[in-house]
């Protein structure tokens, strides 16, 4: 059995209480419209959202799977610990802000600052896949995890905005394109992805393809760039001579 919740006219606090206290594992939320923090206080739930969820969807998420059948707003997956957020539309700014583990799959485009300050620790390695384009400051201050931008439908241009990887010091960004991002900081190294790199992201792309009806093999046949911090040129003497 699934618990159905009609969110019309409901405050987010009440909605989130109903979600976290529901006895069923499966929860279907209808008519979401700007309700914040959905799923943040829940654990081990399978949440389906119809309508527009509010900011900080799945913040601090623990072991939930959230499917959004619309666009998502800002700060999706803020500091999420584990679980999966699957967005069958576009996503606003700062997706995966400081995320610690888990996955965010976005069928369409994401706004500015996707993956800002993602981090990883031992086996906790977060991952974001963006189907189409992404705004400026992708992976700003990225400290860990994988960000994959597929650029589907935008094969003639670089699918990432300006100032990509500003302050990046960990993790990796993979971009499916023939057009390398311009103006990367000197502390970021951009190379053609190797066959090993492609194999490393294969499970992520397969999951994306399975979620939204794409062919992973076709996508992975294309050229990818890989961005990682440039260990030969670390951040030093940015502010003072030390």
């Amino acid at each position, binding site marked *: 059995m699934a618990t159905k919740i009609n969110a019309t006219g409901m405050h*987010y606090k009440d909605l989130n209480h109903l979600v976290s206290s529901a006895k069923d594992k499966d929860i279907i939320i209808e008519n979401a*419209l700007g309700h914040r923090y959905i799923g943040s206080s829940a654990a081990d739930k399978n949440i389906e959202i119809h*309508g527009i969820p509010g900011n900080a969807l799945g913040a601090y998420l623990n072991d939930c799977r959230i499917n959004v059948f619309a666009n998502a*707003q*800002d700060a999706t997956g803020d500091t999420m610990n584990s679980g999966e957020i699957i967005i069958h539309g*576009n996503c*606003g*700014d700062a997706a995966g802000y400081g995320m610690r583990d888990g996955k965010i799959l976005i069928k369409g485009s994401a706004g500015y600052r996707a993956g800002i300050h993602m981090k990883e620790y031992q086996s906790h390695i977060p991952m974001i896949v963006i189907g189409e384009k992404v705004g400026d*400051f992708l992976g700003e201050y990225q400290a860990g995890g994988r960000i994959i931008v597929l650029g589907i439908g935008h094969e003639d241009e670089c699918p990432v905005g300006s100032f990509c990887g500003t302050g990046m010091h960990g993790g990796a960004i993979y971009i499916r394109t023939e057009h390398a991002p311009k*103006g990367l900081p000197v502390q970021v190294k951009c190379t053609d992805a190797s066959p090993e790199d492609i194999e490393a992201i294969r499970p992520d792309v397969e999951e994306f393809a399975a979620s939204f009806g794409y062919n992973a093999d076709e996508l992975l046949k294309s050229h990818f760039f890989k961005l990682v911090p440039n260990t030969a040129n670390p951040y030093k003497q940015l502010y003072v001579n030390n």
Partner: protein
Amino acid sequence: MLLKEGEIRIPSGCAISGFISRDGHKLNGSDVVKSISYMHDRSNGLGGGFAGYGIYPEYKDLYAFHVFYNSNTAREQTERFLDRHFDVVNLSRIPTKKIPAIINEPLIWRYFVNPLPTKIASSQLDEKEFVAQCVIRINNDIDGAYVFSSGKNMGVFKAVGFPEDVGEFYRLEEYEGYAWTAHGRYPTNTPGWWGGAHPFSLLDYTIVHNGEISSYDANRRFIEMFGYKCTLLTDTEVITYIFDYLNRKQNLSLEDIASVIAAPFWSEIDAMEKTDPEKAAKLKYFRNALSSLLITGPFSIILGYTGGLMALNDRLKLRSMVVAEKGDMVYIASEECAIRAICPDVDNIRSPRGGEPVIVNLSEEGKRKCL
């Protein structure tokens, strides 16, 4: 005595919304109230406000002054000033509804006025400049009087409270216009008081703003050299005066103003030198000549003016903003939910890039109907 910007800090975002019917259809004020109410948690009850365009068709050639008074003394003093400088065609209290959520209201009056031709002639100013200077004079010189709306066929309605309550207080369902903007306030630095609620306006320019201007003092010092006085104790006011100065006085286009206040980075201008040297030279000129009008810090704003709306984000896009369309309607809001709340099946939802202005004007049909 109210403390000025910088003298007080209230440890505590904001919400903006707006829409326009390009063909000039009449839109009821209750829609903009509904839209902003879906972003309730972006405000904290310390300010809400609205601007409506095309709302006074019966007085469309007169300046509509909306004024807050702290006392009847301030009102009498202001009315004497108005009588000396204007032909006051109509005056009344602005109709409000007493509700528990809105308290401590000042006296709120509305005047439809025509500047006296003899006074304009003797001032050697054009009409708009004459009116603007009168507004600045009242706000600066008369203690306890604030003209918070001064354009033709438009009006600002604002108060301390949540925006949905402010809309109910001012009975906005009784007004219809071709464009509306709204603001929900969450003050972070400055006092929550009636004059400090958004929109901020001068003549028909209105600004609603989500953000915080780091460059406020630099902008204020520059703009005050041209006769403006920042009297309303908060940063957004200066943006209104920058638009008035650059658009009305310097005849800069709105696109050019966007490249002054949200100027591209030097690195972007350098890159442009190869592809479009003419544009690069212009941008360089703006950055050099008008560097004091660069607005830094996070902002998303909607400018309202006679015949249109403009939306703009800071160049780093540190605040959210989405734009959408449906037929002749264009919607702008901090969050998509605020648009879907009033138009569920809206088309072309997009987030403009940082520093990319979105300018929407009335169509020819809309102009015929509304202007």
